């Protein structure tokens, strides 16, 4: 009696153990989007938006019958914006599912996982990183950026500045992180080519308490335009506040991660007139017909941040490359998916981006300058869409 009980116990133990191991599901007729999403940690505000964006698009496509008979399945895992946990999530998701597309949470992750992508050869990836380095199809054949990389974002800003005030003095203020340093070196040359004068580059240490020293430097350089990069909100309001107090007349500008409407509005009064580059339309944009934005607004009546749009667009691009690959009757391999993605030209995003987009290299080099209007509590367009060649 006792022995049989033991035996059955052992059997169930072994069964459950093996069942917990590689549980590769029958994955026919399914397209899987995996994701290391920073739903908690320092980057949570973006992660939550991205998560909702991908989720909504997947829901929408499946409700409309999927892609050529395939349903989309989204398998996210929280990464807490830490590389080791992102990698763990990647291993977990890819070993338990047949993943075709992956969303990564950081530049470090994109770089770390790149050899895995090359080796697997079965999926392509995009993510929350706009790092300039990723825009190299030779080094990163299976990755792309769903927007302009940081250097291109600077390029769009600088081009706008050169239009507004030829020969203007520009200051770059950036954080001492990989993120902060990313576009600085390359943008120096871009500025010069546009006839602009980079009067000063200021690097702030991460977690800086007080930026009075940096502001004293900025004041001496007297730039016409000051571009912040490598922050979300960080010391930007402090810079603007002190600059206003001293009567320094400079136009402050930011890049993608600073530019969400709610982030800018957190600055309160100081936000007035703040400008920056944004590759997407904001949630509330009504200036042009945008069927996708209408659908998003119908699904979620409350404001969705720009990471949401970014996640949504990423999923849309995944779906489009899957659609093209399947339509050509090709196998869903990384090479085919990426080739399909690169064949995207003048693609209509349904108004997420105001102009038809073309993927160049690994990025979509397009953007528009917006300006903060604190009375309306909204970012309003200050330029037309700028497409870099």
């Amino acid at each position: 009696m006792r022995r049989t009980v033991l035996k059955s116990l052992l059997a169930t133990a072994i069964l459950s153990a093996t069942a917990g191991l590689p549980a590769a599901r029958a994955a026919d007729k399914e397209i899987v989007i995996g994701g290391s999403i920073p739903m908690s940690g320092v980057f949570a505000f973006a992660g939550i938006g991205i998560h909702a964006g991908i989720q909504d698009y997947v829901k929408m496509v499946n409700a409309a019958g999927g892609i050529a008979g395939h349903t989309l399945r989204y398998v996210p895992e929280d990464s807490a914006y830490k590389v080791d946990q992102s990698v763990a999530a990647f291993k977990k998701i890819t070993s338990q599912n047949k993943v075709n597309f992956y969303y990564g949470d950081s530049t470090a992750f994109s770089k770390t996982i790149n050899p895995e992508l090359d080796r697997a050869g079965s999926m392509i990836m995009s993510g929350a990183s706009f790092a300039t380095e990723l825009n190299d199809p030779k080094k990163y054949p299976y990755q792309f950026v769903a927007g302009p990389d940081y250097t291109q974002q600077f390029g769009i800003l600088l081009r706008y500045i050169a239009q507004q005030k030829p020969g203007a003095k520009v200051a770059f203020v950036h954080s001492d992180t990989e993120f902060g340093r990313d576009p600085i070196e390359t943008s120096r040359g871009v500025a010069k080519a546009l006839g602009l004068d980079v009067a000063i580059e200021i690097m702030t240490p991460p977690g800086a308490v007080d930026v009075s020293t940096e502001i004293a430097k900025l004041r001496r350089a007297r730039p016409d335009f000051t571009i912040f990069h490598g922050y979300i909100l960080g010391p930007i309001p402090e810079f603007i506040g002190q600059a206003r107090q001293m009567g320094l007349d400079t136009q402050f500008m930011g890049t993608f991660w600073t530019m969400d409407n709610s982030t800018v509005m957190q600055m309160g009064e100081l936000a007035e007139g703040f400008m920056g580059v944004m590759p997407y339309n904001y949630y509330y944009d009504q200036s042009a017909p945008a069927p996708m934005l209408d659908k998003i607004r119908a699904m979620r009546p409350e404001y969705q941040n720009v990471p949401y749009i970014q996640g949504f667009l990423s999923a849309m691009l995944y779906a489009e490359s899957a659609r093209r690959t399947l339509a050509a009757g090709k196998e869903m391999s990384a090479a085919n998916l990426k080739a399909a993605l690169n064949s995207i030209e003048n693609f209509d995003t349904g108004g997420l981006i105001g102009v038809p987009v073309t993927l160049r290299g690994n990025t979509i080099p397009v953007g528009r300058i917006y300006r903060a209007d604190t009375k309306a509590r909204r970012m309003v367009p200050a330029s037309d869409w700028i497409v870099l060649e």
Partner: protein
Amino acid sequence: MRIGTARSSYRHDEALFDSRTQHAWLAILAVALIGFPFLADEYWLYLACLVAINIASTTGLNILTGYTGLVSLGQAAFMGIGAYTVAALEQKLGAPVLLNLLAGGFVAMLGGLVVGLPSLRVKGLYLAIATIAASVVLHFVFANWHAVTGGHAGITLVPAEILGLSFDTSFRLYWLFVPITILMVAGAANLFRTRIGRAFIAIRDRDISAEVLGIPLLRYKLLSFGLSSFYAGVAGGMWAYFFRVVTPESFPLILSIFFLAAVIVGGMGTILGAILGAVFMTMVPEALKLVVGWLPLSADATLILSPVRTIVFGVLIVGFLVFEPLGLQEIWRRIRRFFHLWPFRA
């Protein structure tokens, strides 16, 4: 003292594991370690490799902190030295893997010796803070010595390759990392049966008395620093081959705290403690993920995961220090003792 282990030869007396039961358990462990990669999926193999790396580094820190009594918050930075050395050698020279790992260990050792120099003048907390200073300085070097470290972008390296075999999956790396870690742990276990190891322990218990007994303090403290950083360096080298990208932000201060916490939670000054501590601290976040996933919370349950993890990390440190200062290793011993006497005494 266990019964039934009468020793009849010097060899038997010197053996690290001396009873038949121990040998049997070791054999089972060996079989489990060999069998594991064939049963586990990529995710578990990934965790196994990470655990192996962490065990190597924690064992190193245990030599310094647990056995010699010198607290260091620079272990992650020394790992960084090892990782950068390996990455630079691999990228610039393409030197063989095992040589790179050894070189990583030795360069980290040099770093450890330099940082250890003040250890004769300052000790205790001051030393701990001096090691924080060393990590800050090293971080600066990693971030700004572009020619070697590649600055903030860091170094990306190709998979390790031995005899034409590319170590590009966790499955293969497992066969590289686990033997190295076992070798390092065995080395540490034997170290404390030698004069050097016993000198370390004497220094920990009271350094002035140790000096009176004729143990040259500076030499042994430096040796301890050197050994500990050697372990960290090799662990860092494995880390580099594992993640294949090394950046200044790969080795933050919190990682040093993690290793110190692993030593404390496992049990200071025991080999088993470092192993248990490293395994436990590496697995806790993953276990938490599972638990939070099971809880019947709303879909937003993952949102609280990161703060909960941070809290649990702190609670573990405080809890073990307050309630179980001897760590997991002591709990393990109690369980073992219970089963030793089991039918006769509960």
